[in-house]
């Protein structure tokens, strides 16, 4: 599958609008330090997951194509969930910069659907490719972090989050079909 597909897939699955709406804020803007820490931990985790993807699949006795089917099913389920609930409820937070780990990295940024896609892309395309694709939602959430929360922006981002949820369903179906058809 092409880089364009994976770029689109990571955008839909990571869903930077949903990320933005769930970040702990000071007033109307996200707190920059926890976000930076959270993104740093996310990228480090993505490197580990993508690099270890082949080994993990070997250990599980699962082929990359079969895992792609599983990833597609998870993504379809998550996409449907996001369509119904486009905004997370506010999570409890550790204090200070530790908020970058909980809740920013986990559970906000690092979701089950992102994990399965990271592993699938890592197994199929390698670490570098995976990181370039992940860079797109990461860049998007950095841009969105300068957007003040207001009733209007919240409504728009909620709608866009729902839209990306729908697109995630499409991505999931494409992953399932690809996993079924590929050798």
């Amino acid at each position, binding site marked *: 599958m092409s880089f364009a597909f994976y770029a689109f897939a990571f955008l839909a699955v990571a869903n930077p609008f949903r990320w933005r709406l769930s970040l702990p804020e000071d007033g109307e803007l996200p707190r920059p330090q926890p976000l930076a820490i959270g993104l740093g931990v996310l990228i480090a985790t993505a490197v580990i997951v993508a690099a270890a993807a082949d080994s993990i699949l070997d250990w599980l006795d699962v082929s990359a194509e079969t895992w792609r089917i599983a990833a597609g099913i998870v993504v379809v389920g998550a996409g449907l969930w996001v369509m119904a609930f486009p905004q997370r409820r506010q999570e409890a937070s550790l204090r200070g910069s530790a908020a970058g780990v909980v809740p920013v990295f986990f559970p906000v940024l690092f979701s089950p659907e992102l994990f399965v896609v990271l592993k699938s892309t890592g197994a199929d395309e390698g670490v570098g490719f995976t990181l370039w694709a992940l860079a797109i939602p990461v860049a998007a959430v950095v841009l969105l972090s300068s957007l003040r929360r207001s009733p209007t922006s919240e409504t728009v981002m909620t709608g866009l989050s729902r839209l990306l949820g729908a697109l995630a369903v499409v991505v999931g179906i494409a992953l399932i079909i690809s996993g079924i058809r590929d*050798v």
Partner: protein
Amino acid sequence: MRRLLVPHLALWIAGGALIRVAIVPPEVCPVVTAIEARQAAVDAGDWLARGIQDDGRFTYGYRRNIDQVPGEYNAARHTAAMLTLYQLAEAGERRFVDDGDEALRYVLANLVAAGGGTAFAEGTADAPLGANGLLAAALATRRDATGDPSFDGLMIDVGRFLVSQQQENGSMLAFWDRQTEAPLPDTYGIFATGEAFWGLTLLDAQFPHLDYLDPAVATAYYLARDRDRIEGQISRYPDHWAAYGMAQLGRDKLDDELIANARRLAGFFSIRLRVESQRTGEGVNLLVRGWPGPPSGVGTAGEGMAALWRLSATDARMTDMRAGMEDDLRCYAGMMVASQVDAAQAATYDRPDLGEGAWFYRDYSQMDDQQHNISALLAVLPLLEEAP
């Protein structure tokens, strides 16, 4: 904090367990050697050979739990099993030529003039296209295995019959009607077209001066473009005979459209083999994956994949699939060698001779269970003989 993390972690753990059990059970692929795979094919060939009766027909099947041999028979399965015995001979197991010739007696006793040529038709039945496609394939394989030209005339006559069943769009009618002495209109066989297609490609290889190539290519396009729609399949049919035919045609005769069809077929065979490797037939796995599939079905996927793997060796448009094909084929061979009934297991049956060398699906084994897997295992041997 615990209140925050526990629900999320519980979701990850439960979700992970669900995915593992229901979506990605382990793909279990026992490792086998070429020697073991060859022996499995020979043992299954012996099952077929032991079952040849006085009239040349094979023992059709065996239900081990009630010690029953069914009375039915099938012409296409007869010629396919005969073909398999000649394939064993071609692979170096020369004694199977005699067994194949024993089975050939039944064919020679049931020939009719049809379509300007000759066809095999049991008793008073209409002449079936598929059985004759496989008859052509069997005789061509016998010719390659023995160098004996005795049946060249019959091959050419059967080829005439096959071509006479072809329609303008490349489709092939499944039966020749004895009463009207013409092809039976609007009847198609789910496997028959692919069987005839492959037969024509092998006849072209034997007799390049005769015109079997054009009809074969016409049917190749029909299979790729129109067959599933015209013949009412809801999805593209994973036709291993078509895979054989395309591999026989080779890259020079296959344009990008036909190669795209070959790639689609490889995908079907791959998912079939991967799902099979996930089946244990026990516990929760039985609920989510069902019983291990009929050996004939698994064998067809192995045959089809092996044929396309041969094609991929010569056609760069399929090279990217080759590693995946090899993984699937090694896995296929491992599964089938491990699941074959050996002498010790067969000794516990009422009829050990109908158990040893066979593959069973829920206590029943049929001649095509052995036939397809012999063909597939023989086709995988060159891969297994390479270093993994």
